[in-house]
């Protein structure tokens, strides 16, 4: 098993090369901009659920506090004065949604991951500027080299084993 890192000069070339590279092994792209990607993400669902749970818990907390925890007459308002509980329920819902979204992002991407073997390739330094990089983990090293040359990769780097 060897890992190759190759860079392309443009997004178009990388996208064109990907179908050919995939059969070689595990392929991952590293790009300065997001590639077109039709796959969906679970994060909106996480955010929605966390927001709803947070809002319901926030509302429940206020109901508990005012009806069971310490019922007290404030300006003659009823104990279950639900319209007054809405703003805080909303704010707590938003807070949990945002936090869940951020934590969820870290979890689904297994971040923080400060070190990754591909970092050993100096090509990767350009992946956040203008190089469209791809890493290929494959058994068929020679075929990969040939294929990359055919697909007009700018540079190819072999990672030390």
């Amino acid at each position, binding site marked *: 098993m060897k890992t190759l890192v190759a860079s392309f000069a443009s997004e178009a070339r990388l996208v064109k090369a990907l179908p050919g590279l995939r059969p070689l092994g595990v392929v991952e792209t590293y790009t300065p901009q997001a590639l077109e990607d039709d796959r969906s993400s679970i994060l*909106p669902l996480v955010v929605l659920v966390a927001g709803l749970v947070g809002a319901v818990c926030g509302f429940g907390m206020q109901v508990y506090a005012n009806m069971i925890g310490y019922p007290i007459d404030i300006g003659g308002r009823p104990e279950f004065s639900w319209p007054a509980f809405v703003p805080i329920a909303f704010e707590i819902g938003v807070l949990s949604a945002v936090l869940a979204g951020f934590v969820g992002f870290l979890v689904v991407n297994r971040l923080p991951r400060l070190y990754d073997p591909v970092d050993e390739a100096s090509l990767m330094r350009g992946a*956040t*500027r*203008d190089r469209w990089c791809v890493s290929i983990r494959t058994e068929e090293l020679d075929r990969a080299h040939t294929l990359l040359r055919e697909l007009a990769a700018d540079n190819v780097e072999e990672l030390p084993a």
Partner: protein
Amino acid sequence: MTPFDPVALPGSNNPDMTDHVSGIALRANAFGWWRIATVLPAALTSGLIGSILYLFFAGVGIWGIDWPVAWGFAIINYVWWIAIASGGTFISALFFLTRSEWRNSINRIAESMTLFGAACAGIYPILHLGRPWFFYWLFPYPNTMDLWPQFRSPLLWDFFAILTYVTSSVMFWYLGLLPDLATLRDRAPTRGKQVVYGVMALGFRGTSSQWRHYRVLYGVLAAIMAPLVCSVHSIVGLDFAGAATVGWHSTMYPPFFIFGAFLSGFATVLLLIIPMRRLLRLERYITGRHLDVMGRLLLTSSLFVGYAYIMDAFNTYYGGEKAEITMFQEKLFGYYAGIYWATVLFNVLLPQLLWFAAIRLNELVVALVSIGVIVGMWCERFTIVVVSLHRPRLPSAYGLYHATIWDWLTMLGTVGFFVFGILLVVRLIPVISMFEMREILAPRRP
């Protein structure tokens, strides 16, 4: 420079933009002007710390507040700052949702402004508490007193709103920063910077999975931030409207406050981008188009605010309540009338200059108008807080308010802190969101 400039001048390209913007943050030595510019803000920030220390030692009696005006500079400045902060979120979140391309080059500035504006705002209500060290009593934690905060009060809603807003703004800002931090990590010239930016970037490498989740999450958070910022400033309005005080008890307050937030936020963003595009050589990415759009927005929000002022007067006289009319006359002609008319002049009349395209593109005039608006918004908060309180319903309770040296020190201190924070942002992180600019510079075409 014309209103029809593209959002990035022709000839711009991604590598140049990345090198230029990251180069600013990665400079070995600060700009000469940067060193000079930090002196006064640093001094003012020290003044802020000093005045807070003295406040902790001596209590809120060092301020000018007393009966009947018990909400003085602390609340004025709080509302003023939180309005400025809100303006930044409008630009970064609301205009993200409308897919306005011009927002990509100024949203980092706007969000940073939000962060430091909210930080300045957040200081005040806590200091305003008689015993600031017990501010955590606002939080519903399982305490030995078996007590709960008063959930029916807009003031507590405000605590939650600010807490959520500050946290969400930090998250949104940091999330938006991740790809740029990765760029800085990969371009950092020294080991120290590599490690610091590397840790902050959390290992973002632009893999397909990272980008996929990232784009979705960024959109979702923007969609959450937009209503959040409206709720925050509505609740600030409710802090006032919830009280049966003359002049405050009005359903118009929440939208009125949001109009004000638009106005002061846009003005502050303009005030920041005008010198920045010159000093940091960003004319290529912050163009006439940006100035034009921001000028139009400033003018529009000024008209909104003007409408609110007219409705304020109309409601008072149409409603016909004696105490309201007395207070309003006092606003127009009384002891603090100068501040009211300054409000009208700076917030409504002065921005009318922006009807003219030539003026919208004149950086000096726009900067002056922006400063005028920021001052005018402060005057508006002063009028709302002080004038209403100094003429309560009972004539026996009439009184005046004067700020003390500590009020001024604290206020100027937060201004210094804000500028200091923005200067730090300029020095340490990319002032332009590079990964979003790439979308404009190399649009994805088939």
